[in-house]
């Protein structure tokens, strides 16, 4: 098996045993990137020179017998709305295409302190606004399972990179499902941590009461490892939690028998039959593990999409006001200051970002604020209380991670409402500040292709341990099916041969 085909846990074991060097690990992934990237467009930048420096630093530590850190020699791909010092941070927008980050985000500096190698910056929907990675100004990322389909979004580049073997782990951001949905579409694991568990310093703000940074990895263990490295209070982010840290890997294999799991009926409405069948087969699997499954009702879920698109857009319209062509970003040629603001924003932002800013501006404008924004904020409280009531009865709530499998490029991009309503299953988690894992559980064959289906496991705030524990138990119970199919899929991503010129 090549190094790029291994999970983070397997690579780490080889690096720590000194069977391979960090430099060899990096070489293997860079080779894989040159093979698969031309077909997928998952990266905006590959940071080879700085990655080589980091790898040799880790190797020197290992040679000297020093502690190389939790992530010794593991390449990590970073979503391009997270700052890596000295590298472009474009947010997949023309607005920031030449902007170089002057500092590291805290999550990045924590990864590097723990021996991770930042291998590149991954593609996303512009400013993380989208569910398909089609709104990027740097081209569409393709789904490795079927390159005619989207990888989901907005962290589509990170998910496609892990799924295709171009990085063993990646960071994404999740404002309404942007880690979980692409993880599901590409058949990998993605964790949206509790609001505040991971610092957001150095992460471009989209919607400040919803944004979270989290890991994407092949396995639940790999996600737990990254969470161990990046979670915890940060002086630079007052919204980060001061709760004491605990190892998320420590109790992964603890008994799950006796856990109570709820299924909210509202999450199952409109789910494609193949996806539903896959979900139901895993519910049976959970019952075999001794888990008590209950049916719940969360009536306020039917308002979640409206609440989300009002609140997220309102916060985005405020956060993105800073991109005006004065302090950073694209500047349009203009005669007056007002023209400079309007033209810089009008030419720098893409259509989806403009759409969200406009919705937010409308919802916050005089005469509409009470009707839309304040009302959505009240309905959010109703939703939070619904979840609290449910978590009084069960330990965890499960659902399909998405209502459908990866859709075709171009299929939904012209219909904003269809794209937005697809987020119904993921947005409530952000609105209620909960944590949730998306993990692959099987495949749909309904569209003439084998496409991954995901499970969402939702936990109470700061209960990542229980979420990960159930995910790990299910992963163990399912065996190697997902991995063996992933191996086959990766082999099919052959390099595009150059056309041979014939004399």
């Amino acid at each position, binding site marked *: 098996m090549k190094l790029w085909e291994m999970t983070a846990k397997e690579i780490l074991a080889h690096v720590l045993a000194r069977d391979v060097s960090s430099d060899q690990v990096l070489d293997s992934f860079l080779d894989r990137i040159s093979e698969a990237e031309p077909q997928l467009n998952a990266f905006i930048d590959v940071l080879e020179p700085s990655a080589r420096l980091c790898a040799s630093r880790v190797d020197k530590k290992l040679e000297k017998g020093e502690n190389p850190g939790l992530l010794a020699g593991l390449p990590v791909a970073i979503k391009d709305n997270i700052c890596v010092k000295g590298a472009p941070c474009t947010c997949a927008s023309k607005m920031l295409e030449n902007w170089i980050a002057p500092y590291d985000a805290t999550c990045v500096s924590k990864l590097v302190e723990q021996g991770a190698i930042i291998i590149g910056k991954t593609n996303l929907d512009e400013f993380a606004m989208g569910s398909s990675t089609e709104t990027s100004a740097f081209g569409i990322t393709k789904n490795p399972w079927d390159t005619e389909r989207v990888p989901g979004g907005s962290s589509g580049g990170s998910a496609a990179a892990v799924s295709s073997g171009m990085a063993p782990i990646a960071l994404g951001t999740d404002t309404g499902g942007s880690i979980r949905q692409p993880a599901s579409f590409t058949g990998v694991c993605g964790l949206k941590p509790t609001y505040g568990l991971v610092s957001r310093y150095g992460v471009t703000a989209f919607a400040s009461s919803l944004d979270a940074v989290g890991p994407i990895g092949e396995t639940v263990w790999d996600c737990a490892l990254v969470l161990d490295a990046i979670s915890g209070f940060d002086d630079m982010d007052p919204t980060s939690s001061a709760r004491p840290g605990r190892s998320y890997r420590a109790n992964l294999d603890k008994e799950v028998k006796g856990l109570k799991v709820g299924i909210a009926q509202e999450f199952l409405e409109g789910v494609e039959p193949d996806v539903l069948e896959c979900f139901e087969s895993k519910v049976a699997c959970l019952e075999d593990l001794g888990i008590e499954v209950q049916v719940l009702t969360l009536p306020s879920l039917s308002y979640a999409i409206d609440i989300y*698109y009002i609140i997220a857009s309102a916060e985005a319209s405020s956060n993105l006001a800073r991109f005006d062509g004065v302090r950073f970003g694209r500047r349009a040629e203009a005669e007056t200051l007002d023209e400079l603001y309007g*033209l810089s924003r*009008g030419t720098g932002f893409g259509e989806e970002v*403009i759409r969200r800013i406009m919705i937010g501006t409308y919802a916050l404008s005089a005469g509409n604020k009470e009707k839309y924004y304040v009302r959505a904020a009240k309905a959010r409280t109703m939703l939070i209380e619904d979840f609290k009531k449910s978590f009084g009865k069960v330990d965890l709530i499960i659902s399909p991670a998405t209502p459908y499998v990866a859709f075709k490029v171009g299929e939904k991009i012209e219909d904003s409402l269809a794209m937005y309503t697809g987020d119904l299953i993921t947005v409530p988690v952000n609105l209620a500040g909960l944590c949730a894992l998306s993990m692959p559980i099987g495949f749909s064959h309904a569209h003439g292709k084998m496409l991954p289906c995901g499970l969402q496991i939702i936990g109470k705030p700061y209960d990542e341990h229980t979420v990960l524990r159930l995910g790990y138990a299910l992963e163990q119970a399912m065996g190697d099916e997902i991995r063996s199919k992933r191996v086959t899929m990766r082999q099919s991503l052959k390099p595009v041969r150059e056309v041979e010129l014939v004399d």
Partner: protein
Amino acid sequence: MELDITRLAHDAGITLPEEYKDDLANDLTSLLEHMKHLLKVDLEGYEPTFSMVESQQLRLFDDVVEQTLSSEVLFETAPSVDERYFKVPRESQGS
């Protein structure tokens, strides 16, 4: 519902590309139509949730000077600067 897209774009500080105008107006109208669903729900007794920060965790920083990014570093990333100022066009065409 009538939506003045030009006025809204002005409020958002965006000079709207002509090619977006019709699509955006249609999209915003249908999205706001969808949101009518929320306007009908009884929310009596619910306080609004504007922030997810646990109020008890907020704390004051110690009143000490700390090293942060220098202004030189930040000016380097600006589109146009004049020594220690961001350079912008005149506010108006007047003298």
